[in-house]
C-alpha cells in the first residue's frame, strides 16, 4: 500500500491517490488534497466535507452525490459549483474517504 506525505503526515493511499484510511485525515490534509486538485476550500466546502465524513462514519460507506444533496442539504447545482466536473469523486478525495459506489 503506497504511503504519501501530505501536510507533513504519512498517509496511506491507493493506486489512484485516494486515502485508504479515513482516520488518518485531518483538516490540514484536507486543505492539501484540495490544493492538489485545484480546489480552494470555502466555508461551504467545509460544510460538505464535514457531512461526507460524518455520513461515511455513520453509514459505513461514502455518500453518493444524491445523498449529499438530499440528506446533506446542499443542492446538486451548488455541488457542481463547489467541486466542478466530477463532484462526487472530488468530494470524497478531499474528505479522505473512498469513491462512492452507488449508481445514483
Amino acid at each position, binding site marked *: 500500500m503506497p504511503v504519501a*506525505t501530505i501536510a507533513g503526515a504519512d498517509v496511506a493511499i491507493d493506486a489512484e491517490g485516494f486515502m485508504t484510511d479515513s482516520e488518518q485525515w485531518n483538516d490540514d490534509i484536507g486543505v492539501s488534497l484540495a490544493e492538489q486538485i485545484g480546489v480552494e476550500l470555502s466555508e461551504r466546502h467545509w460544510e460538505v466535507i464535514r457531512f461526507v465524513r460524518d455520513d461515511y462514519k455513520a453509514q459505513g460507506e461514502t455518500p453518493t452525490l*444524491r445523498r449529499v444533496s438530499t440528506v446533506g442539504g446542499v443542492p*446538486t447545482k451548488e455541488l*457542481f459549483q463547489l467541486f466542478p466536473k466530477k463532484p462526487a469523486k472530488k468530494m470524497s478525495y478531499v474528505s479522505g474517504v473512498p469513491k462512492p459506489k452507488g*449508481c*445514483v
Partner: protein
Amino acid sequence: MTTAKEAPAVVPDFGDDDATDRKICFIASKGTLDMVYPSLIMANAALGEGVETHIFFTFWGMDIITKELSEDLQFTWMGNTAMHPPGKKMHMPQLVAGFPGMTKVATKMMKKQIADLDVPEVPEMVQMISDAGGQLWACKMSADMMGLGMDDFVDGVVDIISATDFIELSEGAQVIFT
C-alpha cells in the same frame, strides 16, 4: 505544486485539463417504467463524471418529461418473456400479465424494487439530471403527434427540436439509443 518532499506520490486525474470534452446524447424512446431508467441512470452517471450530457425524448419517452404522466409510468411483463422475478429462474405466464389489476401489481413491485436500491422515482431523477447540467430535449414529431407544447413538459426541458436539430446537436457525441 508543492515540493517533492511534501507532494503526495499520486494525485488522481479528475480530467480538469482534458482538451477535448466528451459528449453523450441519449435517446429515450420508451415509456415503460423498466425501460426509462437505463438512459436516466447513465445520464446521471455521465454528468457525475463531468461529461456533457443530452437526452432526446421521443415517442413514448416523452412521457418521462410530460408533467401529467411522468409520475405514473407503468410496468407489465406482457409480451416480455425476459421478465422473471429477481434471482429466480421462474417463468412468468404471459396470460397472467393480462389479468385485471396485474399491471398495477407489477408496477408496484417494480417501484418497490427501485426504491429499495435508493434510486429516485422518475420525476426526481429527471430533476436531478437537469440540476446537474443535463440538457433535456423533446422530439418535435412526437410533440406534434401527441399535441404537446412546452407548457406540458417538466422544468428543465430546454426546447422542442426536430430530428435534424438532433443530428446537428449530437455532432461528435456518443449517441446511445434506449
